[in-house]
């Protein structure tokens, strides 16, 4: 069977397709989250060093993973949009950014909620938290640039270029922060990198990360639909759709 993928790259055809896809991803996210929460709260044993506070890791580490994955995926969509001049790719990049920023913020907040009982301080300049903070700045820069340019075409392409510049810089920033941290002798407890992590713990984190991933897809599709409606406000298909929708 030959599928014409380009057909789905126009907003008019993608809009109803996304509508059909959203419930699938949402349900997958819900099921994975329930399984992940069951493992992280019922099956995973108490950590003998950190007590029950370590269970924060089951939300902190997946949020931190997703914040990085989303940035890379966002940059990939942005690059694709720039290379192929495809509107849908740019819209996907734009739709992913706020969710990525939210996960970054969650990773920071849960990291400091973990740090308070473990380190005795709400904030410690350890390599992981610091790079997460810088990632938040990168997301905010992308969102700020896109929202301050009025012309959507220019906003798409400028944002895409910024995301690509950011993705080239992320490894350098990460390396420099890590280096800075070892020179200044930071914390001794390393969050999430326990040497002998039980298999159940790893499974819990993986399930939660997958749940977040599916959630991200569902929410990004929801947001991309909003962006399509807003951009093509005066297009015939949107008008027909809005008249058909119940008020």
């Amino acid at each position, binding site marked *: 069977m030959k599928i014409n993928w380009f057909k789905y790259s126009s907003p008019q055809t993608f809009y109803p397709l996304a509508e059909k896809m959203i419930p699938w991803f949402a349900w997958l996210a819900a099921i994975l989250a329930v399984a992940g929460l069951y493992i992280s709260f019922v099956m995973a044993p108490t950590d003998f060093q950190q007590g029950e506070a370590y269970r924060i890791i089951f939300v902190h580490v997946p949020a931190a993973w997703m914040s990085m994955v989303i940035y890379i995926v966002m940059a990939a969509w942005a690059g694709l949009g720039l290379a192929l001049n495809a509107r849908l790719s740019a819209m996907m990049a734009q739709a992913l950014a706020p969710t990525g920023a939210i996960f970054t913020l969650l990773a920071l907040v849960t990291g400091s909620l973990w740090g308070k009982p473990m380190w005795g301080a709400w904030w410690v300049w350890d390599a992981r938290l610091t790079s997460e903070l810088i990632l938040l700045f990168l997301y905010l*820069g992308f969102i*700020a640039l896109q929202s301050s340019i009025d012309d959507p075409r*220019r906003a798409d*392409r400028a944002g895409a270029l910024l995301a690509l510049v950011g993705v080239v*810089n992320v490894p350098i*920033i990460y390396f420099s*922060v890590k280096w800075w941290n070892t020179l200044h002798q930071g914390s001794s407890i390393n969050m999430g990198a326990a040497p002998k992590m039980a298999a159940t713990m790893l499974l819990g984190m993986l399930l939660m990360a997958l749940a977040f991933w599916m959630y991200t897809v569902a929410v990004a599709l929801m947001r991309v639909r909003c962006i399509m409606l807003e951009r093509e406000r005066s297009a015939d298909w949107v008008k027909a759709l809005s008249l058909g929708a119940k008020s």
Partner: protein
Amino acid sequence: MNDAWLIILKRDLLLAFRRRSDVATTLFFFLIVSSLFPLGVGPEVAVLSSIAPGVLWVAALLAGMISLNRLFAADFTDGSLEQMLIAPQPLALLVLAKILAHWLVCGLPVVLLAPLIGLQYALPNDALLVLVWSLLLGTPTLSLIGAIGAALTLGVRGSGLLVALLVLPLYIPVLIFGAGAVAASQHGMSAQAHLSLLAACSLLSLVLAPLATAAALRISVE
């Protein structure tokens, strides 16, 4: 091709020379920011010399950033930027000439002024030397990366603050390596590794930043 490059460089330097107040603004900003810290922190020599590398580098970062808005703005309003876009020479090379001019006008004076301020912070002689070297190797990266931000925000409302938000996170490696070099020499260690990394950052951005800036200019002007 070399002619166009030199003409742009000469023209930008001439314009900067005609409006010397712009250069002075950057220098005064650097001077004022780095003089505020002793007033805020207190005049103890031990404290001042321990914060000196970070303070001087952050001040240099901010001083290089406030002048970024002017990098392409004048050419954008008088139309010469569009001439550059359609010129037969590769845009990235022409952009490089503008960035070099920006560094000569805004970066180099800061590098030359920095040891004087380092003296106020009681930095020893060899640390002063490392400070100059680190700024010399690091500030070109600031101009190069800054040019991308300046090109992206060209003609956008509120571009002054926006450029800070875009560019400052990307400056972090240069800050870490630069301030780290001075701190290493203060502690009697070799600053070689830091300086090599700064040079590597400069070389990498020398290759990539003009291309990205050229692409950003095409997006912003088209």
